[in-house]
């Protein structure tokens, strides 16, 4: 009887040992999938600017001292373009100030092509402000451009509150 007990215990011990050994040796694999989305981002740090009060014949700059910060980011490997345009001439009722008098310029500290170093007016047909380099379109680096706006009020301008919309456009 004792022999059977010892034999049974030994068998149980061996079975447990085998199961541990099998567990330790078992391998498996799972497939991990992740979808990384592309980043193509436009940031504009304000929704309005103003020139305060200007007299006919006077020239002024926007009152926002740091200018308007417009940043672009891309990871899509294609150079991107930033354009700036005045949707319409500055107008007050039926009166308007021609776009030749409304200007933009600014600075960019990045390695693409910045086309706003010299003052340009909004009547010019080419309104490209920044062309990113290939490197910048791959790294997700935020490319920061600072825009300032100037306005010369023609002598014959009638008094009024003149408004328009400046549009920044970012595409590949």
């Amino acid at each position: 009887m004792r022999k059977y007990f010892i034999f049974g215990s030994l068998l149980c011990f061996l079975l447990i040992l085998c199961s541990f050994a099998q567990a330790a040796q078992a391998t498996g694999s799972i497939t991990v999938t992740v979808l990384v989305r592309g980043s193509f981002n436009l940031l504009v740090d304000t929704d309005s600017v103003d020139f305060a009060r200007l007299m006919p014949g006077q020239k002024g700059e926007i009152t926002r001292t740091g200018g308007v910060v417009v940043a672009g980011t891309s990871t899509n490997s294609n150079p991107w373009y930033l354009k700036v345009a005045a949707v319409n001439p500055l107008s007050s009722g039926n009166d308007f100030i021609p776009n030749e008098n409304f200007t933009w310029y600014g600075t960019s500290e990045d390695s693409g092509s910045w086309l706003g170093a010299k003052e340009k007016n909004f009547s010019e047909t080419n309104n490209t402000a920044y062309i990113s380099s290939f490197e910048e379109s791959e790294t997700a680096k935020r490319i920061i451009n600072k825009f300032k706006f100037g306005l010369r009020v023609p002598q014959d301008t009638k008094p009024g509150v003149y408004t328009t919309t400046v549009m920044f456009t970012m595409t590949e």
Partner: protein
Amino acid sequence: MKKIFISVLILLVSVNVAFALSINIDPSNVKILLKTGDSKSGEIIVRNTSGSPVRLRAYVEDWIYAEDGSKTFMKPGSSVFSCSNWIKLDSDAFELSPKEERKVSYVISSPPTASGSHVSVIFFESLVEEQAGIAVSGRIGTIIYQDTEGTIKVDGELSRVSVSTSEEGKPVNAAFSFINKGNSMLLSKAKVTIVQNDKDVLETRALPVNTLPGESRTVNLSFSPLKEGKYKIKTELSYGDKTLNSQADFTIKKISPK
């Protein structure tokens, strides 16, 4: 404690004010191959990455290339390469809360007469309140490239690259042209290199040279000034699985003081 609370409140308000608009889209371009008379659908994920709610307008426009390689945008249907009127969006205006995203679906249907390449752009534009002064708005676009299956003819010609500078110490101005002779739009990448002794690379520029069917693009480049000597300029332009090459020798001479 009250002072700290007020400071934090001011900080939170200023953070919200600091970023008026920040939008992310994915993808930024879509290439669609369609059989004549067929339709395909897709979606664009638009995300408000700012801390403020934003109201957006979605719409399509045409575009053509400007001289600098950027795009000039126009009303739908105004370009001969337009497929804007073939595109239907499931939404034309919506609002996104801070960090919220939305899938905007589109369906593009090719007419039975379609042939070659067509293009469009789907814009997402921030809607701003009317106010005194100047409103500042932004828009970001997904470029649509559509090809009609079985009708595409790819053909291009690279002109000889030339250098117009010969004086030491002056920027080296170079130019080359590319003509798209097929009926497909070509998204090409050009690499222009200045070498000395056939092996020493002095300066390299990489740039996109994208063209619509029939278009010709002249690329002007300015390289750093060089010392007196003999050099070579090499242009390599590739699209699809095709690569075109052009090269030219040029000499930089010392200018003797008068």
